[in-house]
Structures are given as C-alpha cells and as structure tokens.
C-alpha cells in the first residue's frame, strides 16, 4: 500500500460512491418536487408563508429551537407520535418544500412541533409560553424568552398586545409586558405549522 496514486484513487472513489448514493440520487429522485393543489380546498400545499411567518422562521433558526424540538411526525406504528396527537399523518418530503433550511431536528427535549399550529392555535397561549414556559407548562425545562418581550410603564391605557400575566409572573403594578416584533413573528411562524392536509402520497 505504498503506491500514492492507487491510494488516492481508492480514497476518491469511496467517497464518490456515497456522494452519488446519498446526495445525487436523492436529488434526482425527490429534489424537484413541487407543491400540489389540494382537491378539497383548491389551495396549494404547502402554502406560502406570510412575510411575518418567514421572519418568525428566522427567529426560530437564530435561537436554536431545533435543538430541543423536532418537526417530523413518524409513521403510525413506529413510535407513538400520532397517538400522542402530534399529527394526523406522518410527515412526507412535500411538507418541507418551502423551508430553507429544513429544520427536522434530532432531539425531543420538548415536544414535536410539526402541528403545533393545530394543537395550540392561540396566539396569546404561545406568547405566554414563550415569555415564561412555567406559566402554561409547569415543570418545563424550556428557557424563558423574556428578551423577546419588553417591560415598560403603562402609558395611559394598557396596550392591547400586553400579556395577561397573573400572580407571581405579573410585573409590578403600573408595568406591562408587550411582545417585541420578533416574538410576534415567531408566534406567527408557530401558528403556521400545520401538516394535516391529506396528500396523495400519504394515503
């Protein structure tokens, strides 16, 4: 094994083989998928995200939400994702067509979020949970995202966006907590996470 060119040849070919098999062939097989029109609603799936939700996805990415939350529902019979109510069907490739980057996630320190827009469709709940997860989920180890919110003195009347905080979580009298634009964007993104539309490939 002293012959350099032979070594180089083998080193090149071996990685080339998996580059072909795991990158090139998948690209050829499902790299050109397009959104489909759902018969029942005549809407495109996956739908376009609103600008605010796209911004929210950037906030999700910047703050590393994917390190605790997955976004993939495993098939029925493999794990208990669907039985837990994390989705009505398994996730498929088409669900991720509009995602850059695709944040499937590899940890479930927190629950799967593929369908969180279905499970927790209330913006006030999402904002409270982000501000301090203990409010809605006592015992959670999710960090509080207070830095996405602003606490300020109430000017005249309380603002409509102010969080309804009670008990130990409420600010001092005369103060209110309002979400910053990033918090609103993030919530908009989370509410957009729905993958229950039946598709041809999921029948």
């Amino acid at each position, binding site marked *: 094994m*002293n012959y350099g060119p032979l070594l180089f040849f083998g080193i090149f*070919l071996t990685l080339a083989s998996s580059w*072909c098999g795991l990158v090139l062939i998948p690209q050829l097989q499902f790299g050109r998928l397009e959104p489909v029109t759902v018969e029942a609603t005549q809407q495109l799936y996956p739908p376009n995200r609103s600008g605010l939700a796209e911004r929210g996805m950037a906030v999700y990415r910047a703050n590393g939400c994917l390190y605790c939350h997955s976004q993939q529902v495993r098939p029925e019979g493999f794990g208990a994702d669907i039985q837990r109510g994390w989705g009505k069907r398994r996730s498929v490739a088409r669900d991720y067509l509009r995602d850059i980057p695709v944040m499937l996630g590899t940890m479930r320190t927190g629950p799967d979020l593929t369908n969180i827009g279905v499970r927790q469709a209330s913006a006030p709940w999402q904002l409270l949970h982000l501000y301090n997860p203990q409010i809605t989920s006592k015992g959670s180890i999710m960090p509080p995202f207070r830095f996405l919110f602003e606490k300020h003195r109430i000017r005249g009347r309380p603002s409509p966006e102010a969080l309804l905080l009670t008990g130990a979580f409420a600010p001092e009298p005369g103060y209110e907590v309002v979400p910053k634009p990033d918090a609103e964007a993030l919530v908009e993104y989370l509410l957009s996470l729905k993958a229950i539309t039946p598709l041809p490939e999921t029948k």
Partner: protein
Amino acid sequence: MIVWLLFIGSLIVLPGSALLALRWAARTGQLEAFQKGALQIFDEEEPVGQMTDHFPGPDRLRRPKPATTGHGSRGDEKELPS
C-alpha cells in the same frame, strides 16, 4: 430511469475497480512481505523493544521493572538512583 442506471453502474464500477486494484497490487508484488510495513516506524534511534514514553519525574513507581526475558535491551530498564 437515470437513478437505476447510476445505481447499477456504480454497483459494477466500484467493486470492479476494487478487484482490479487488488489484482494489480498482487501482480506488482505490493503484497509480498507485507508485514514488514509494520516495522517502518522503528529505526536505530528508536528500535523495536524500546519503550519510548514515561511519566515525568524521578519517581521510582513510574518506570517499569527491568524485563527479565531478554526482550528489550535498552530503555525499559533504566536504573534509578535509590
């Protein structure tokens, strides 16, 4: 279609070239006296049988006892000051 072509093609090319390379190696004598390659890292400065690392300091515990089987003539049994 192209997926299948690529797949079958690589299934032939990869093991095929590996076997060709093996045949070439055997024919040009690359595989004779192969075990000698393992001796490449030893030389006169650091020959076979000499341990080349130790703990720092003169602590007696940190040197192996002299070998009694005649294997390893230097280095292994540095006499320590008592």
